[in-house]
């Protein structure tokens, strides 16, 4: 018995360990690549430890410090507020759809599902956002359009249906309103899935540049990702433009590949800390005694 355990456990640890290494190593290469000069990349490729490390890529991205700071401010605000609001809206909807006795439940399910399958495309979406809702150049333009997502709603609904029906019924008998049941009971029991959706939603808002590109024209309101994208696009253009010798010299010091890697690091940086923070919500046995209690 104990021998079987050890072998199985060993295999599990090995499997997880090897895969984690396979995930870590390329990331180390990205870090190394972000510190590599272009000439080293051309001659030797990307390595974890560059021979002549340089901060040129980061310097190039942070050149306009005030813009980067405002970009961080915008993105942090959007991520925090957007995640909170989005989580609330999506989980509330997920709860509603988990009530099996609800009349028109199938219709609402279909209503949500179709939004995931059909899309009118970029042009009509832009028209609705800008011409009908006047969302241009507004901080809320970065939050509202992506606030409600069918994918998360279904995920949350799935989890809520897994919660024993007795909880709902006993609360109903006690005379609790739906919103009370939702807030006091279901949300408390769903910490794991809420942590999951929080993580995914936060990542979505943090990485988003699409809304910034389409709806924001003032550079002070651009989210971080959009700003960095612009900088890289500009640098790439200057590099291919082959203008004056001074510009050429200058552009030559900015590593074209390194800058793409630096972008990955800068955008990953803060948000990677979110996952460890949320891990404590993935506790087992949250449901123990819930029914009996």
């Amino acid at each position, binding site marked *: 018995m104990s021998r079987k355990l050890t072998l199985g456990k060993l295999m599990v640890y090995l499997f997880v360990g090897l895969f984690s290494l396979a995930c870590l190593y390329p990331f180390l290469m990205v870090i190394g690549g972000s510190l590599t000069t272009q000439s080293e990349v051309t*001659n030797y490729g990307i390595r974890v430890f560059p021979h002549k490390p340089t901060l040129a890529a980061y310097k190039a991205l942070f050149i306009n410090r005030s813009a980067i700071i405002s970009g961080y401010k915008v993105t942090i605000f959007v991520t925090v507020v957007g995640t909170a609001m989005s989580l609330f809206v999506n989980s509330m909807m997920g709860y509603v759809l988990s009530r099996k006795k609800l009349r028109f439940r199938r219709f609402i399910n279909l209503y949500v599902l179709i939004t995931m399958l059909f899309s009118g495309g970029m042009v009509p979406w832009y028209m609705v956002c800008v*011409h009908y809702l*006047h969302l241009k150049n507004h901080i809320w333009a970065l939050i509202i359009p992506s606030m409600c997502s069918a994918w998360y709603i279904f995920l949350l609904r799935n989890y809520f249906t897994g919660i024993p029906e007795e909880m709902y019924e006993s609360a109903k008998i006690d*005379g609790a309103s*739906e919103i009370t049941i939702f807030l006091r009971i279901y949300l408390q029991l769903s910490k794991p899935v809420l942590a999951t959706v929080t993580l995914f939603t936060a990542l979505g808002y943090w990485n988003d540049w699409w809304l910034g*590109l389409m709806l924001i024209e003032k550079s002070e309101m651009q989210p971080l990702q959009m700003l960095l*994208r612009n900088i890289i696009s*500009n640098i790439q253009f200057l590099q291919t433009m082959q*203008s*004056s010798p001074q510009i050429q010299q200058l552009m030559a010091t900015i590593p074209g590949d390194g800058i793409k890697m630096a972008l990955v690091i800068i955008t990953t940086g803060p948000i990677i800390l979110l996952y460890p923070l949320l891990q404590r919500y993935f506790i087992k046995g949250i449901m123990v005694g819930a029914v009996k209690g």
Partner: protein
Amino acid sequence: MKKRFTFIARIVLCLVLISAMLVSCSPKSEGDSGNDSDGGSQNSSGKLDPVTLHFIFFGDKKAETDAVWDAIAEYTKDTLNATFDVQFIAGNDYKDKILVKGSTGDVWDLNFDGDWLSYYQMVGKDAYMVLDDLLPEYAPTLYAKYQESGAIEAAKSKGHIVAVPWTMVMNNRPLFQWRGDLVEEAGITVDKDSFETVEDIDALLAQMKEKYPDKKIVENCGFDMFRAKYNLMDIGHSLSVDLNDPELKVIPIESTQAYLERAQWAEKWQDAGYMWKDILTDKLDHNDLINQGLLISKFGTHEFANQNRAWVEEGARWDYAYVYEDGLFANRTPLANVVAISATSENPERTLMFLNMLEEDQKLYDMVHYGIEGKTYVLNGEEAVFPEGMNASNSNYMEWGGRWALWKPQFMRPDASYSEGFWTREKEAAVGNPKNVVSPLEGFSFDITAVNTEVSRRDQIYTDADKLLDVGLGDGTAEEVVQKLIEDQKAAGLDIIVAEAQKQIDEFLKGKK
């Protein structure tokens, strides 16, 4: 009862929250079509109503851009009475964003564009305003310039003027460049005067490969030189016309002798190792390869051959020679860099007046291109240079993208990019060769609406095959691949496209007479 009350209170709170969100979204944000006047009309006393003009340029907005345009507004207060709202869209996204703005009826006045950018798509969908009457009336100086240079024809689409092109003249006739210093060092002699054909290039490549076996010799087989050899001009979507043909019959490029020859040479050069196998996928920066001296020749044009590079090696320099100088080659279209007025613009008159002023006023030109003296540039004699401690990467105004369309040769100062007399030399190079011709199809653009499916398929089939043929990596021998391309194109409706294009060209030529 209490429970019900709290419940209702919560719901009401939610609704209030939501409606507050919606309300806060509703009011029009500043700068969004906040015009006061109606169409820039002058009131009876001759004074102009104040307007806001919305410009869109290419690239990055700099730190002092707003300050400079405020100063411009101040300077033109009496003549224009306009404030400027200047916006920048970064390079990679420019085309998509402008198309979306155009397609959804966004309001703006002026934007940068080019034939290599989104010009043809915007024009094809009528996104730019027709300027037939407005241009001569509100920008007479500019209009006269165009008439003189013939650029007015280029700015037309379906017979109407829709763009304000740049006034520069240049020709991108193909030439072959190689590392002069390395060639000299290796003892290879090149007789530039008799350097004329692809065979000459081949011989030089062979010698370079022999002396520098570890270097990459060339990156592709430049197609333009074969166009020059056979007097072909590209009219878009891989269709061409023969410049010697007065009827301008449409020729699909893959069926020409030029195309076959190029494919064969590319194959030869790939097999001989002048190019390298991973060229399409290794994502190496070719600019950097050249700077480092790892790639030692390329096909180029006069503009780029005459510029210095950030050479790593001491004494590195380009030598170059034209090939097929006797072939006809069309001048670069004035549509290379244009500014266009959106069909939704509310102040086209004022915008055109601004453009006209740029043609006449050196001071305005300086402000638009270089900014505020002392703050964004300083004068070094006649040259405009960066202030102390500043350069292109942290420029606070200069070197802004899209300014190329507003270059005026009569006012241009030598600056960090282009030295004294550079553009004069470009123009001389262009008009110097009698075989450089003005395109007979200036002002024509192929309207693909009727054949959009066929053209899209054609573009995809062509680019997929051409990408490989350009570097000699076709799936099979050059002859086989080209033959397959010809057959695939025919099967995808080539004849329909050619017929439609020919019809439009014939109409265009008839209209010109």
